[in-house]
């Protein structure tokens, strides 16, 4: 059994951090089972579950038929039995066949049965673009899940958080949608696609506790303190916002939300009340995106502190294109322009 806390750290990519979280959770609790497409022998197309089948046996880590509804539906049955399934959907773009099982079943099990049955399950999926994945390997469907009562939605932005948040998600008594920004698996991509990406081994957030250390769900983290404007971001957009602040010279306070549901409103509110301005950045399409929820929430909570309209920088309301990827992607220029606009308002 892993010790509950340890101060020893080691450099990991986000993939290694996610693998380490699986490993420690499986070692600690034999109720944790892992399955999904290609996750067994091969260890997943992104290798996040590599080595787990060899270490824990094929009853606890195995390949699933290519049927997302089946993967989530079987996971729900396992959770009803009392196991703690951690399932992988190969790409978030593939999750839609499982949507009914997630929305109508996993999310409502506790409520509809008044606690008779519950669904302690993690549904992991790589999300977001920037890898020339076209419309079926690039989407950011987080708002489809934040809209659903009963789900928790987590988007880590770095290896340290990915490990700690995944460990928390596995132990959370409710279903957790765990969206892994695939463009961040190997380094903190900031949207400058024509430049090399710093590998995680050269980034402080690539320093990951070796042991079993949970990062609590529902807590945002301020990535950059600033006084001029609050930027709400998550996943890849945290780094895009950082570089945009640097390049525009605007003293932005950048909040990495980490958990979208439940949302850490106190951290957001304190920052917006301090800066009086707010820019929301996400890669997903704009209309009815999570930014709309954030904007409404900030307006309700901070209206009398606002000195400018809240702005959103998002993906366009188009399918995610292939060749036009960087025209779609809300990169540093667009975020920087929004920062300037909100300062000039």
């Amino acid at each position: 059994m892993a010790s509950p806390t340890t101060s020893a750290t080691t450099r990991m990519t986000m993939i290694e951090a996610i693998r380490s979280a699986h490993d420690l959770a499986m070692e600690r609790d034999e109720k944790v089972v892992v399955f999904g497409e290609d996750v067994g022998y091969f260890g997943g197309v992104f290798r996040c579950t590599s080595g787990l089948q060899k270490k824990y046996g094929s009853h606890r880590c195995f390949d699933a038929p290519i049927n997302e509804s089946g993967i989530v539906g079987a996971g729900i049955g396992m959770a009803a039995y009392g196991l703690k399934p951690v399932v992988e959907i190969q790409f978030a773009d593939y999750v839609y066949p499982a949507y009914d099982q997630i929305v109508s079943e996993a999310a409502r099990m506790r409520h509809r049965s008044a606690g008779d049955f519950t669904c302690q399950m993690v549904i992991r999926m790589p999300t977001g673009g920037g890898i020339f994945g076209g419309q079926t390997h690039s989407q950011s469907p987080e708002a489809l899940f934040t809209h659903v009562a009963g789900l928790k939605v987590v988007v880590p932005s770095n290896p340290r958080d990915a490990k700690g948040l995944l460990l928390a998600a596995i132990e959370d008594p409710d279903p957790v949608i765990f969206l892994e920004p695939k463009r961040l698996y190997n380094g903190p991509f900031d949207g400058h696609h024509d430049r090399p990406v710093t590998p995680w081994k050269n980034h402080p957030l690539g320093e990951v506790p070796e042991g079993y250390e949970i990062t609590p769900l529902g807590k945002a983290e301020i990535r950059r303190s600033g006084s001029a404007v609050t930027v709400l971001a998550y996943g890849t957009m945290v780094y895009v916002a950082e570089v945009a602040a640097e390049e525009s010279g605007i003293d932005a306070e950048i909040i990495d939300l980490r958990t979208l549901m439940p949302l850490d409103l106190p951290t957001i509110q304190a920052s917006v009340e301090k800066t009086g301005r707010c820019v929301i950045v996400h890669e997903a399409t704009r209309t009815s995106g999570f930014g709309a929820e954030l904007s409404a929430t900030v307006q309700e909570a901070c209206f009398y502190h606002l000195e400018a309209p809240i702005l959103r920088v998002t993906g366009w309301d188009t399918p995610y294109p292939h060749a036009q990827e960087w025209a779609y992607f809300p990169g540093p220029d667009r975020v920087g322009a929004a920062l300037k606009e909100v300062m000039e308002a």
Partner: protein
Amino acid sequence: MPDSKPLKLRIPEPGCRPGDQPDFSDFVIPRAGEARRPEIDSDPEAMRDMAFSIVRVINKKGEAVGPWVGALDPEELRDGLRHMLTLRVFDERMTVAQRQGKTSFYMVHLGEEAVSCAFRMALDDGDMNFPTYRQAGLLIAGNYPIASMMNQIYSNDQDPLKGRQLPVMYSAKDHGFFTISGNLGTQFIQAVGWGMASAIAGDTKIASAWIGDGATSESDFHAAMVFASTYNAPVILNIVNNQWAISTFQGVARGNAVTFAERGHGFGIPALRVDGNDYLAVHAVAKWAADRARAGLGPTLIEHVTYRAGGHSTSDDPSAYRSKEEGSAWPLGDPIDRLKRHLIEIGEWSEERHTQALAEVNETIRAAQKEAEKHGTLTSGNKPSPRSMFDDVYAEMPPHLVAQRQAGGY
């Protein structure tokens, strides 16, 4: 170049609509006792014929005949008859209660009582059913309190589900009854997952999945079949073919296949059809499938051939889409009449005892209803508090829900 003609579809239609004379002459029904009984460890390939036959035990005279004659003693058979009578009377009383405005909705089992009542007796405590809304016999035969079922139907302040679910969408983990969804077919794959979990945990319990003929079209049916097949999961996969999915006859879901049981063949899953109106046959086939699952031999697909003699629900009017005479023309008879005749035939029952038993069942249901109505109905008495609807969305209420509850004044 071949002769090209405009293409056409086949849109399946039932043989009988309102005003037509019911005709079941093309429904091939083997004689009771005719279907063979393979060993549970037989090669699935060698049992393919079972998907085209029908296991039947009680013959027209009421005798139990053939290789599927089971191990139930007369006392157990009388229990079974009482369970079915209880379910039927329960349905009658709750239908009236719905008509009286005491609840919003109800669904009866008329004609299908043997399926869930007999099946339950082949399971052990600790096994888990993933039912549809038409298997309340699993609860009744499992001695779940009748008044608790009514409290759920009434959504009163003793409703175990706190007024959150439509009537009849029970949940009873301690009685091996998974929370009913209402979204069709989702439970079929969940049952397979539960069975897989039992095997992963090294347990001995088995799962039982339920679905109707219509919902076998759902993708989750096929997901369940492939998962059950791939992992050899300890699960019994039940299709209740009651001929009608609301107004859609079973041919629309079955398509060009001859039977629903046949769906098992593509997955290498042993598949049988059973006379769903024959208590003895349902029990025997269920026991056979449960023995297979418990022996590590994997899933079994059972098509229960029955007839939905009532409406789909209290919101349905079957006379709008099928002949009123079809139910009485249904060739497999009534499950209660058939078990009653069998018990009389073997000298373990009589008309007098039946009348007496029915009176007792009526009294039991009446007393339970009185008890339940003390706690209110949907339209009278105490209700679960609005405050409680914010509970159980999550294990721990997140701040936004606390805020919403306060804003609502609850």
